[in-house]
């Protein structure tokens, strides 16, 4: 890597710098992704604050006589925003008014609980993205994981330990099966994975709905579409007596596994190569079809594991039609925010899990509906994906923009030369 300014035409958003040049590293950090990420969160919080304030009845009332007594307005404004964000924080991280250590940390364990399914599914989707597959099918894959996991959980009565392991394996197999279908169709017939996975999401939802009307999947003596309760032997053991359970450990282990797979294994190399350039990978002798199928199987299996955090925790133990929630779609944003990298996905999953956990408290204790969380999430992802915009908002130096300007001037010069 050279010290001179990069050539203007190579103004790609992420320059591949591999050398150990510390000055360059320092420069990259200064205008790099960490700073833009923090600033993106700041912008999102400011936008969120505007929304929160705009919807608050007190703020609206005081805005009516803003010019008569501006103090009221600003006091209401500050109080509303502070209350909402403080509730958000206390619901997601630590409860500052708690009496015991357990209560103090309870929000954090809630956050972890919300984050685990997002991390699992996000890891799976991330593999797909890196293989160049836009898999929207996590939702269906979670549902199939839940069907397998749930059935093993309530129908088989096994000893502690074995039962849990089989349930987790079942979830993986169920999801992998549902991921295999678009994978093999893409590999063999070229069927577009976007369509197939969207369709399979709906098919899985209807299939689960049908299953829950069958005797085998219904609670005896009940007509509700609910399965029998899962055995306690299938539950994830709790971590240190808190609400967080072994599922989180498994999710972190899965993230490490995915990292090893993608960065160190032959299969991971094949997946990345196919994602970067399928034609080149084919020419180099890699099996594009094989990589595609493996990617979708792994992605599906990981998404299937997301179902375990719902079914095998002590709070929700029945298979119902809403078992997958919206985790499959939320996980897309998580994987995108995590840039499809395992560590990033874990961090993004925790962030989104925290926003969700905090959002519930915020909705319960203040005037602010939880929907504002979606706005925060999407603004963060959008801005992190567009560092030049963040830099433009905060007037930070931007090499990309300078490169673009230089390129434009060069083009203009060329054009005037050509016309002259």
């Amino acid at each position, binding site marked *: 890597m050279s010290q001179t300014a990069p050539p203007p*035409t190579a*103004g790609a*958003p992420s320059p591949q710098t591999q050398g150990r040049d510390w000055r360059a590293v320092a420069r990259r950090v200064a205008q790099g992704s960490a700073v833009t990420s923090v600033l993106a969160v700041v912008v999102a919080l400011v936008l969120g604050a505007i*929304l929160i304030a705009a*919807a608050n009845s007190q703020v609206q009332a005081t805005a009516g006589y803003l010019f008569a007594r501006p103090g009221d307005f600003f006091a209401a404004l500050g109080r509303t925003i502070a209350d909402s964000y403080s509730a958000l924080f206390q619901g997601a991280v630590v409860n500052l008014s708690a009496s015991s250590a357990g209560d103090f940390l309870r929000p954090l364990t809630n956050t972890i609980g919300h984050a685990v399914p997002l991390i699992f599914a996000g890891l799976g989707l991330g593999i797909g993205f890196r293989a160049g597959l*836009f898999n*929207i099918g996590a939702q269906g894959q979670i549902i199939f994981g839940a069907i397998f996991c749930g059935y093993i959980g309530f129908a088989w009565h096994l000893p502690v330990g074995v039962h849990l392991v089989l349930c987790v394996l079942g979830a993986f197999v169920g999801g992998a099966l549902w991921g295999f*279908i678009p994978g093999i*169709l893409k590999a*063999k*017939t*070229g*069927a*577009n994975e*976007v*369509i*197939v996975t*969207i*369709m*399979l999401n*709906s*098919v899985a939802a*209807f*299939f689960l*709905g*049908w299953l829950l*009307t069958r005797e085998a999947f219904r609670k005896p003596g009940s007509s509700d579409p609910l399965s029998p309760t899962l055995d306690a032997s299938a539950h994830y053991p709790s971590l240190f007596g808190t609400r967080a359970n072994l599922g989180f450990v498994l999710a972190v282990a899965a993230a490490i596994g995915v990292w090893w797979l993608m960065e160190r294994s032959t299969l991971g190399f094949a997946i990345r190569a196919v994602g970067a350039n399928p*034609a*080149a990978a084919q*020419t180099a002798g890699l099996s594009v079809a094989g990589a595609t199928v493996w990617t979708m199987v792994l992605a599906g299996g990981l998404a299937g594991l997301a179902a375990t955090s719902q079914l095998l925790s002590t709070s929700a133990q029945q298979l119902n039609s809403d078992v997958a929630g919206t985790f499959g779609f939320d996980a*897309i*944003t998580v994987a*995108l925010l995590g840039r499809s990298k395992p560590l990033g996905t874990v961090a993004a999953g925790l962030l989104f899990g925290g926003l969700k956990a905090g959002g519930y408290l915020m909705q319960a204790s203040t*005037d602010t*509906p939880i*929907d*504002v*969380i*979606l*706005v*925060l*999430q*999407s*603004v963060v*992802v*959008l801005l992190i*994906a*567009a560092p*030049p*915009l963040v830099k433009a908002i905060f007037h930070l130096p931007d090499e990309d923009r300078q490169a*673009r300007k230089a*390129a434009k001037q060069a*083009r203009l010069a060329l054009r005037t030369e050509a016309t002259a």
Partner: protein
Amino acid sequence: MSATAITGLSLGGGAKTSAPISWKVPIALTALTLLVGVGFSVGVGPGEVSHVTIETGNSWSGRPTFDLPTRASVIVLALVAALAAGYSWWRASRRLKIGRWVPAVAGAALVVAFLLWAVGGREQSLQATSLLSGALFLSVPLIFGALSGCICEHVGVINVSIEGQLLAGACLAAVVGSITGNPWIGLICAPIAGALVGCLLALFAVRYWVDHIIVGVVLNVLVTGLTSYLFSTVLERHAVFATRVQLPRWEIPLLRDIPVLGPVLFRQNVLTYIMFVVVVVLQIFLFKSRWGLRLRACGEHPKAADTVGIKVNRTRVLNTILGGAVAGLGGAYFTVAAGLAFGKEMSAGRGYIALAAMILGGWKPKGAILAALLFGFADNLQNALGVVGVEIPSQFMLMAPYLVTIFAVAGVVGRMRPPAAEGQAYKG
């Protein structure tokens, strides 16, 4: 480099070898014919009759009900499908191109066979006209969405945010419609909301080179969040927003009297007629006008387009906004056309179905519309058969269109070619 090397090699090495025959279409059609033909004719009693009612649109012929012997009709239709399958075997073995109409004919025959089978032996008759006209209305948002997708993809921008554009259009149309008490003003506002989402898509995808799919997905989340927030904080709390306004249903004189077709096509909501116009205009302009040529040039080969003086990024931005507006107009379906107040996430994934329809239709308006109609038909099938009292587990009924789509994408349609430069930022 590598791609040209491959084609060069294959051209040099095997100029006389013909391409391998693709048996996909014949195999798929035969499998489907056997499955449906055998399955439906076996399960029918000998004396069963299917009643089908059709509105002719004329006062003197009224609404005749046809009584068709179920088994015989199903067998005839299965034979039609079998003929289509046989024809496709013959064409394929001679390396001739199999027209799109062959699977279409087979599919239509099998769908009709399914319907007759489903209503066979029932007292009530199948209301064929309302099945079709309802299907057309249900496919309105899908068609608008798919057309929006076509415009954006042809200019080189992948539009995954159709869902968000529909939702934004639905929301603004309902809000403005309720405030003014006039559905027409709501209708005008719908495309504005969609265009705003389109603006954001263009800003991030074209200006900041963010991956188009990322922007699309995230914009869907953003619009869902904003509209749900607006709903929870404002719309739900004020009675004025609960007032429903509805666009009128027009019956076009003369045209509505065309036998069979008239009641289906020309006794529709105003939005449906607007859709007809948009469809025709887009189909012509996209492929026959200077605007369309320039637009497609930007999606196929932006460098070449730039070289001949087309401002690639400006074209992309403007047409992405236009695409957003088209999808936003489709959003009006959910509120002012259907006569409902706005509700949270009321587009319910239709934007993604529209995206699937656009891809299923091969990135072409005509194909996309057909695919969207198919989805609309499948949606309405549930209602129509429910009226007759058919007891197929409803989940399987609802699943059918999605399975058919997977089947179609994998078997019949296969590898389709999107615009060459879609999803790529033009940095020239």
